[in-house]
């Protein structure tokens, strides 16, 4: 099936790093991630099972590690939000083998609703654009209004497939000249 992408370019957003105070006055830093599986595996082990979406993050630590290894392969883009020394949010772009990337974002429960998701996803899209990625898509559960609103705010549009999950897409660059 062919996915329709918006005609207009989202953002464009600045790539990381970025630092800011969240709505609870916590200093948050967002950087590209290159620290390996261990650090983020720790964050995902602490993840509230009710915040899982469509089977990710996986439940067991060995599954989390295998899943993360896949996200850290070449051509993937990873940015992480830090509160002091602790990773508290992660956003990732994974090539789909068809010229676009799938996006996912996770923020630890105590840090949700504080504006971190928006900063994190903007930084991710900025990083992806910097890396030459043109098109991004995601799926989200239809009942997840907070996530859907976040995606809309940063430039994603519904590419409605009529499935359980809502599919959305954004354009990061104009198509390369033919």
């Amino acid at each position, binding site marked *: *099936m062919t996915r329709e992408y918006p005609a207009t370019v989202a953002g464009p957003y600045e790539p990381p790093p970025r630092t800011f105070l969240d709505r609870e006055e916590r200093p948050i830093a967002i950087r590209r991630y290159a620290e390996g599986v261990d650090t983020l595996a720790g964050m995902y082990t602490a993840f509230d099972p009710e915040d899982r979406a469509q089977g990710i993050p996986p439940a067991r630590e060995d599954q989390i590690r295998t899943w993360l290894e896949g996200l850290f392969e070449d051509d993937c883009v990873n940015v992480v939000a830090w509160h002091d020394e602790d990773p508290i949010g992660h956003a990732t772009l994974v090539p789909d083998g068809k010229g676009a*990337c799938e996006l996912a974002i996770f923020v630890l429960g105590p840090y949700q609703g504080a504006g971190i998701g928006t900063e994190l996803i903007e930084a991710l899209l900025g990083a992806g654009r910097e890396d030459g990625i043109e098109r991004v898509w995601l799926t989200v559960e239809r009942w997840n209004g907070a996530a859907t609103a976040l995606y809309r705010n940063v430039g994603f549009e519904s590419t409605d497939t009529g499935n359980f999950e809502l599919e959305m897409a954004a354009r990061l660059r104009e198509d390369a000249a033919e």
Partner: protein
Amino acid sequence: MKTLLGIGGSDDSLYALEKAIERAKEADDDLTIAIVENSDSDMTEADLRDRIAAALGEAGFDADIESLSGHPGSQLLELAERGSFDRIVLGGGETSPLGKVQLGSISEFVLLNAQTTVTLIR
């Protein structure tokens, strides 16, 4: 038990084919395999018949095979009612590049509309 397996050629449906045959053999269930139209799959009905024959041959098990034309979900449900099946079995969904589970459109339709118990194979 009378089990109806629906497959359209997606990877998860082919996995379900093997698992369902295994399970039906163990439980000595009466298995019917329905081939449905899946526009997202490149496999033809003939491909699927070959695949089914090979899987049954390997398991040393026998099943009825039916081809359903038209809307796959509703045709499966219709057959399930008509044939008084106890259970419908389907593939458990594909995995996105990021690892998200995504149910196929046939599974979605069947889950929402079936009067029969539905099993998704993972």
